[in-house]
């Protein structure tokens, strides 16, 4: 993402104009744009014009509209962002107050205007515009008969495709069914992988599985590439790394990203750090339980007491539709930063972020143990509200 223009007055009211260059930038935009913000972007719209004679003709016009956002929708698989809202600035073609959905596109400027730019929103812009080498990693977690093909970028984990093949088990008296089943599975996975990955762009391709499936698949890939004379694969052969994990389900990516094979290659990436910090938190909860807390109520109390050493927040919390709720989390982040403690905002679309989300999106590692954060009189009330905020 490139920052084209920005302005902010003393009340923190202002705008930024951004130029998205990569699919990942859409994810940043998704984290930046909130309800009630004003977004300006290029639009195509069918406009009906009534002529002097009274007939009506329909025309497609290219124009720029400014809308006041009501809802946003992000599709990570294709990297598309749709922003829906009411038109809030006079336009030659579109009447004020009518609805429009902006499809933000790559290589087209858009402007985001906010009443108040807080730390978190500014952080997103800075993060998005920081130029760095992309470190995209292809990852396939697999087990016999099941594979998840994922693309792990700095801020996102995208499940590209799931491959499922029913493999007959070994039976007394014949294993040919099993062996041909495995071959069929490898072949399908290989073909799907070719469609899903752009091998030149990827830094590494991780093959992770329990047992020997990943090794088997790797051998299959080399053989098949030689047989079919596939130059892209042959050139990328060194990029394939096999890693051990415990199952072919996508949450096993957590294990994959913390394995030594991966950390040695990708130590400086954000997701490696995120995975590590989550691991540390879970370790702390078993070894030093009173220093590791999660949940809104408990963490709020810990923040009040100034005990937080590292605050872990999932960015899904900042996407909350309720501005009050969002403000509360932003306030908490600012407060913790003021105390000089560390704040880590985890990307909820990574597996580590998903882990944090299952804890309610908020966790803290304290500098000293606190014992009674969870017993209090508000319990009944919380229960009436339906427990944790996360869905």
């Amino acid at each position, binding site marked *: 993402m490139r920052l084209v223009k920005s302005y902010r007055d003393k009340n923190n009211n202002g705008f930024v104009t951004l130029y998205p260059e990569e699919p990942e930038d859409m994810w940043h935009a998704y984290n930046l744009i909130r309800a009630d913000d004003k977004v300006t972007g290029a639009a195509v719209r069918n406009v009906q014009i009534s002529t002097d004679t009274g007939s009506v003709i329909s025309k497609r016009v290219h124009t720029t509209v400014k809308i006041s956002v009501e809802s946003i929708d992000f599709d990570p698989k294709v990297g598309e962002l749709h922003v829906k809202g009411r038109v809030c600035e006079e336009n030659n073609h579109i009447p004020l107050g009518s609805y429009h959905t902006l499809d933000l596109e790559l290589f087209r400027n858009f402007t985001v205007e906010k009443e108040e730019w807080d730390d978190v929103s500014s952080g997103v812009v800075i993060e998005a515009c920081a130029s760095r080498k992309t470190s995209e990693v292809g990852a396939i977690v697999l087990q016999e008969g099941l594979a998840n093909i994922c693309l792990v970028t700095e801020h996102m984990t995208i499940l590209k495709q799931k491959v499922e093949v029913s493999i007959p*088990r070994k039976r*007394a008296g014949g294993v040919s069914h099993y062996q041909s089943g495995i071959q069929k599975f490898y072949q399908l996975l290989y073909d799907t992988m070719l469609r899903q990955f752009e091998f030149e762009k990827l830094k590494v391709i991780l093959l992770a599985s329990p*047992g020997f499936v990943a090794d*088997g698949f790797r051998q299959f890939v080399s053989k098949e590439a030689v047989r079919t004379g596939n130059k892209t694969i042959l050139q990328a052969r060194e990029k394939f790394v096999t890693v051990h994990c415990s*199952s072919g389900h996508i949450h096993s990516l*957590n294990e994959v990203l913390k394995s030594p094979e991966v950390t040695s290659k990708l130590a400086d990436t954000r997701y490696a750090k995120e995975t590590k910090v989550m691991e540390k938190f879970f370790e702390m909860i078993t070894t030093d339980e009173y220093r590791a807390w999660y949940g809104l109520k408990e963490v709020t109390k810990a923040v009040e007491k100034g005990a937080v050493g590292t605050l872990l927040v999932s960015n899904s919390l900042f996407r909350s539709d309720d501005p009050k709720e969002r403000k509360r989390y932003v306030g908490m982040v600012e407060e913790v930063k003021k105390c000089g403690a560390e704040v880590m905002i985890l990307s909820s679309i990574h597996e580590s972020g998903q882990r944090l989300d299952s*804890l309610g999106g908020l966790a803290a590692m304290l500098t000293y143990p606190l014992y009674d954060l969870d017993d209090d009189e508000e319990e009944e009330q919380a229960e009436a509200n339906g427990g944790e905020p996360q869905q």
Partner: protein
Amino acid sequence: MKWYKERMWTDCWAGLDNKKKKGKDIVEAVKDLSVVDNAADIERTAKTNKNVDVIKEFAAGNAKKESNFVVVGHVDAGKSTLMGRLLYDLKVVDERTIQKFKSESEKIGKASFQYAWVLDQTEEERARGVTMDIAQNSFETDKAKFTILDAPGHRDFIPNMIAGSSQADFAVLVIDSSTGAFEAGFHLQGQTKEHTLLVRSIGIQRIIVAVNKLDSVSWAEERFEEIRQQMTVFLTSAGFHAKNISFVPCSGLTGENVVTPLKPSKAPWYKGSSLITELENSSPLARAIDKPLRLTVADVFRGGIQNPVSISGRIDSGTLQVGDVLLALPSGEKTAVKAIEINNDPRPWAVAGHNCTIHLAGIDMLHLKQGDVLSSVSNPIPVVKEFTAKVLAFQTITPMAVDIHRGRLHVPGKITHLVRTLDKATGEEVKKKPRFIGPGTAAQVKVSLEQGVPLERGGRVVFRFGGVTVGSGVVE
């Protein structure tokens, strides 16, 4: 398929000659095209139903008792070898095959694997010398019929081991008694402990501990006693009753005390019986015959030209006979039973506890996968996307993503809420909404699943994460 096509074309050409008839012919030809008519297939098969009162037949039959047992234990404890030896000594496998395996295994530098190869059949298993998936085999003695489920010991294949255990009535735990090996398996990360806990939490109550490779320590009584004491303490704490535990010293490779009883000169201190006698003395679990039918699919395969869709698995509850119409869940497709086989022996019916192969009619293979449940049409098993379970934690549980296992079923899910921790003895609430559940604590949790899964009250599930078992539970 081919002749249908041909017929259609000839019909079409004939139709072209006579333009008046053309339209009608094509319509009929297209009707003919629907080669697979599942409903009719089911109906036809259902007509073969003899409406046997299976419960009565089963009670009346004086057949030998039939039981299934799973063989578990740490990797390289000698599970497959012990079972291969058992089959060889009982003449299920002939001398020639063993000789063949012997020379072949020596060729690839894996001498002493000849018995294991009886069960380890895939190329990969043989090349690596590790069992990877459940091997099923059967044998018969004068007193009883048995089905062996030989489980893999490597920790990566625990999902398969869980699948095998859920098909068994009782378990044989194999322990490598050679110096240092027992300790390695009994260590925290060793499979001796994890397997035992899993077997128990799946519902198995009877366990035979085969203290294997005792020949390597020249049948020393002290070693046997040492293992027996440590294991007894552990097994009792895991929830096995003392009367359901027995210990047998043996050697799989030499075959001593497997089928042939131990010579008194070898180990004068041992007064007990051989492994086979212990097996014969173990009775199968009580069977829920009068409950509605539930059968967890362990495998889906092509049974041959005549039987394009076959499944195998254990009947968890209820009865089944040829011609019955069943419901496959979660796909919701109906199917009819064309034939039933138990250990390659055709049967008119089968009851809970039987591990059988069933040839199906009127269903496409796409609608069946491992872990699905075949259930009675009138009383189907519910398909759920979330459930509450009472769990016993083996590791710390927080709200988190887990792998959920039930037999062959292996799906991703999430523990979303920790409802309360419970007192293990009384089942009363100790703490509401705990922050986490520590190892050894019982608790009630809510679990959500990514896709609908057939599960009902009383179903036993195992939760795993990152390659370790974090807990096991019962669906509420």
